[in-house]
């Protein structure tokens, strides 16, 4: 990996500029990104590092997008997004979870959950406010909190109880500056889901200590065990909860960039204010495609979910068989096995697995320090490839560690520097 030399810097007579924003400059690049650069250059790699569906968007949805282009729907929409779409979203959440959001004043269409998350943090936080974030967690949570002027307070979760988010642990991290709790269920990278009772305990804490709840529910449809609970429907939660969701995972629409937030009117009003000045609106084309998704793609969703579920069972069983102990992930499309038996740290494991067996996984440390000792494997990959990956990983695990070291195959490409550093906390 050669980096282009920055000749400009060396050129004489160039005058220095003022330093850029320190918060952003100090935020390390994503550990995932670094890993990607390496894997992308290699051949014959089976990637289990992909955080998106392996399905292409169902044809009926793509066709709706094509149709809307042909018809010339190439304009802005209202800032909040198409009312038709907001009405369908609110009806959908009501039907599935009993949620009660007003499409006009409590629902906003965003450019994916990513924008929704940014908006929620920006309107909730004042500089220095603390945000409780369970760890390991999605790579964007901590940087987004910091960009919004907040301070991340990590709350550790463990594999031994399926990454349950204990109310006691959350309570222990609460301070007078605690402003919000941000978490996802089902979660990336662990695949963990939180039970209704545990969620209620978190809501009760939020009420007692007066903080907001930002609930990332993008994987809601990818719940394989039990039922998903929309956080905003729990008693006491509604007025302090921002529900983030979108079309990327359930409908395999990651590249369309369309999501939504549902929150009580005062929060939605402020989020809409930021959105109207910074983003104007989500893509018109994607919004029309999303309408088709909600109207007609339910059978496609069910088919895809059933397929993920089969692969989940197959893959998790396979991981346990080859010595990568893995609790049962109940949602999303990730397995987050322990690599304890390998005797390696997660970066080293991921790096060597890539170099020696050409399987790309993401080191757990990319998701915060408590992700150490694990790797994230996405099973959103064709079954034959999963089988082959398990084969290669099994071979990797069987090879005695000294042998691996003695072979002198020092990886040509180092990726450990800075990998995962500062992620999540």
């Amino acid at each position: 990996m050669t980096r282009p030399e920055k000749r400009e810097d060396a050129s004489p007579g160039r005058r220095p500029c003022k330093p850029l924003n320190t918060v952003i400059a100090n935020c390390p690049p994503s550990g995932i990104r670094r890993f990607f650069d390496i894997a992308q250059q290699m051949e014959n790699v089976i990637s289990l590092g992909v955080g998106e569906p392996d399905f292409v968007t169902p044809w009926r949805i793509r066709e709706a997008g094509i149709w809307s282009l042909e018809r010339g729907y190439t304009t802005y929409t209202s800032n909040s997004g198409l009312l038709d779409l907001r009405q369908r979203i609110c009806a959908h959440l009501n039907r599935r979870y009993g949620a009660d959001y007003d499409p006009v004043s409590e629902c906003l269409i965003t450019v994916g959950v990513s924008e929704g998350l940014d908006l929620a943090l920006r309107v909730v936080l004042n500089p220095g406010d603390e945000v409780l974030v369970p760890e390991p967690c999605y790579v964007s949570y901590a940087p987004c909190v910091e960009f919004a002027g907040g301070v991340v307070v990590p709350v550790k979760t463990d594999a031994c109880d399926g990454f349950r988010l204990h109310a006691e642990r959350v309570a222990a991290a609460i301070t007078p500056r605690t402003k919000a709790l941000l978490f996802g269920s089902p979660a990336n990278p662990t695949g963990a889901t939180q039970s209704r009772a545990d969620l209620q305990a978190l809501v009760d804490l939020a009420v007692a200590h007066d903080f907001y709840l930002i609930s990332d529910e993008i994987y809601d449809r990818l719940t394989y065990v039990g039922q998903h609970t929309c956080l905003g429907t729990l008693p006491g939660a509604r007025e302090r909860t921002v529900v983030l969701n979108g079309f990327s995972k359930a409908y395999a629409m990651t590249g369309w960039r369309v999501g939504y937030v549902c929150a009580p009117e005062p929060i939605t009003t402020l989020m809409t204010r930021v959105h109207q000045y910074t983003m104007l609106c989500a893509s018109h084309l994607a919004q029309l495609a999303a309408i088709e998704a909600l109207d007609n793609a339910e059978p496609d969703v069910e088919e895809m979910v059933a397929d993920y579920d089969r692969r989940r069972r197959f893959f998790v069983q396979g991981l346990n068989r080859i010595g990568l102990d893995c609790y049962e992930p109940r949602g999303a499309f990730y397995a987050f096995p322990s690599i304890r038996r390998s005797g390696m740290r997660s970066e080293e494991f991921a790096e060597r697995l890539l170099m020696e067996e050409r399987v790309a996984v993401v080191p757990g440390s990319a998701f915060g320090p408590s992700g150490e000792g694990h790797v994230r494997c996405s099973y959103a990959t064709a079954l034959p490839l999963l089988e082959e990956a398990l084969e290669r990983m099994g071979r990797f695990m069987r090879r005695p560690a000294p042998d691996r070291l003695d072979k002198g195959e020092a990886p040509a490409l180092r990726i450990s520097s800075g990998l995962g550093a500062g992620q999540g906390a």
Partner: protein
Amino acid sequence: MTTQKMREILKILERDAHAAPDQIAALTGLPEEEVRRQIQAWEESGIIRRYKTVIDWEKFGEEKVFAFIDVKVTPARGVGFDDVAERIYRYPEVHSVYLVSGTQDLRCVVEGRTIKEVADFVAQKLATIDRVNSTSTHFLLKKYKDDGDIFAESEADHRLMVTP
């Protein structure tokens, strides 16, 4: 075993006749022995009729000619169209025979090596059957999708190697 699990096993086999019981067990979370017994029971009862392979003969280089032949039949008391349909479907070159609504009665798919071979079959065998009034033949020019299988290059995976 729940009906849902049974349906799941059947769907896996419908998509991949090759799927082995241990693999199906892993995919469904059922014990391997139970899967094996269930499949055997289906094979015996005829719910699973047989296992077949979808082959792109054109890709293999083998020329095959298919024709859809719509047949108009005078039905007879007591048997309707069944006896004529049977006389047709017993020919091995006939792939499928359906009774359909509309102006025609039977729709057949016939396979041959050349257009002439199929045309001869229609003229000499099919059209001469008693109570067959007329036939109309449509030769297949290109197969896009057959029985749920798309006969084109599948869409490439455009995903990046590693994403959050």
